[in-house]
């Protein structure tokens, strides 16, 4: 093995770098995804959202990044599972009485379970929307919009599909629970990533904590509130 593969496969510090870098990349993805989701709240019958969806699925740069994104999700899951397995095997006999709640946060101890919840959510989410958009599970109706320069564009009516789904109480429930799991996952994960990368200093750790709140608090809240708004609208 080269020094690089040896570092990232067979040292604990190197393995955590993979988790940190893939995790932080996925955090930036969340921010972009949420910005797009806000198009759903336009009271325009879905025009802004449908045109945005068309752009996101046809722009070559965005498409390339989306493949990287899927690869990073996979890497984060596989590495996470491997690290969890290694960590479980470091203590075959556990404690009869254990009180970890007094010394560490809930989030930090349940990262694997929270991550699994997010993975299940992701599978449901991709099945609901990505597969529908790709025409695998559904045949979405087409809709025509006239742009400002009088150009006519015909796009798939993704908005009506999202609108339909977000009127199902079970779907809205799954989204809210998924985002709660995401919030707890990032409560530990975001700042932990910087620690794994060795970035901890009295000068900038407070900034990491503040930006962390955006990722574990505001972004999951934003994702969860959109289906709720649509449901109750």
């Amino acid at each position: 093995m080269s020094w690089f593969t040896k570092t990232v496969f067979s040292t604990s510090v190197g393995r955590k770098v993979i988790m940190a870098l893939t995790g932080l990349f996925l955090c930036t993805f969340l921010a972009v995804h949420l910005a797009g989701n806000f198009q759903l709240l336009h009271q325009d019958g879905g025009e802004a959202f449908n045109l945005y969806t068309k752009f996101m699925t046809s722009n070559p740069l965005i498409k390339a990044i989306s493949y990287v994104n899927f690869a990073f999700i996979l890497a984060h899951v596989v590495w996470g599972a491997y690290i969890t397995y290694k960590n479980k095997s470091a203590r075959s006999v556990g404690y009869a009485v254990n009180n970890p709640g007094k010394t560490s946060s809930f989030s930090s101890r349940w990262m694997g379970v929270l991550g699994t919840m997010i993975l299940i959510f992701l599978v449901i989410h991709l099945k609901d929307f990505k597969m529908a958009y790709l025409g695998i599970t559904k045949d979405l109706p087409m809709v025509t919009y006239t742009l400002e320069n009088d150009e006519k564009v015909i796009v798939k009516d993704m908005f009506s599909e999202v609108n339909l789904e977000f009127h199902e109480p079970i779907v809205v429930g799954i989204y809210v629970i998924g985002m709660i799991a995401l919030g707890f996952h990032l409560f530990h994960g975001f700042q932990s990533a910087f620690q794994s990368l060795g970035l901890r200093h009295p000068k900038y750790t407070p900034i990491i904590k503040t930006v962390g709140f955006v990722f574990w608090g505001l972004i999951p809240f934003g994702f969860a509130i959109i289906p709720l708004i649509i449901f109750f609208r």
Partner: protein
Amino acid sequence: MSGHMNLTLKVWRQKDAKSTGKLENYEAKDISPDMSFLEMIDVVNESLIKKGVEPIAFDHDCREGICGACSMYINGEAHGPKRAITTCQLHMRSFHDGETITIEPWRANAFPVIKDLVVDRSAFDRIIQAGGYVSVNTGVTIDANSIPIEKEIADDAMDAAACIGCGACVAACKNASATLFLSAKVSQLALLPQGQAERQIRVEAMIDQMEEEGFGNCTNTEACSAVCPKEIGQHHIARMNREFFGAKLSSPKK
């Protein structure tokens, strides 16, 4: 006697490394709140000896909080419910009359149980042997004042050097990771002028040894610092990570 306590102990008993152990119940009668936790075990052991029962084996040495021998997982916490102390500095006033106290050995595959509450912590020695030292192969001792160092840096190095190698960090970590222990030594020597020469080979060799011993991966739960009797901070782990990346990217070793 007034103020004295009667307690029930659930203690891990294991004949030797090969046997499977189990928790046994013992009564600790007439315990003074002023006793240390180890003195309480001494009293229980006296009574066990009188009854012809094998006394409870446990590690202890200095009994003044600086040697790190007294490894006990008490009521689900390394060194018991108090912070910044070892078991010998824990006093029975932290418990109440009638309480049941569960006492277990450190649990980690890298720390196999030898007998009862005694575990083999020589994995820590092997990690230190891998690079946790400074080689001075020649010459006389240089006058201390000829090596300038800032007070803040010397203080930080001293805080890291306070590690007594007790293993509470591993015991409390959900992953049985030795990262805090390792980082204390790496950080201490990385901060000091004397540690510079072997800085890169040290961190690489020590981390390799940690992997070999079978400790888990650090997931930054910070439980280690919370239970550390010397309150060694998380910034030492961050520094060790930086040291490791720097060494991996630029050390002379291929």
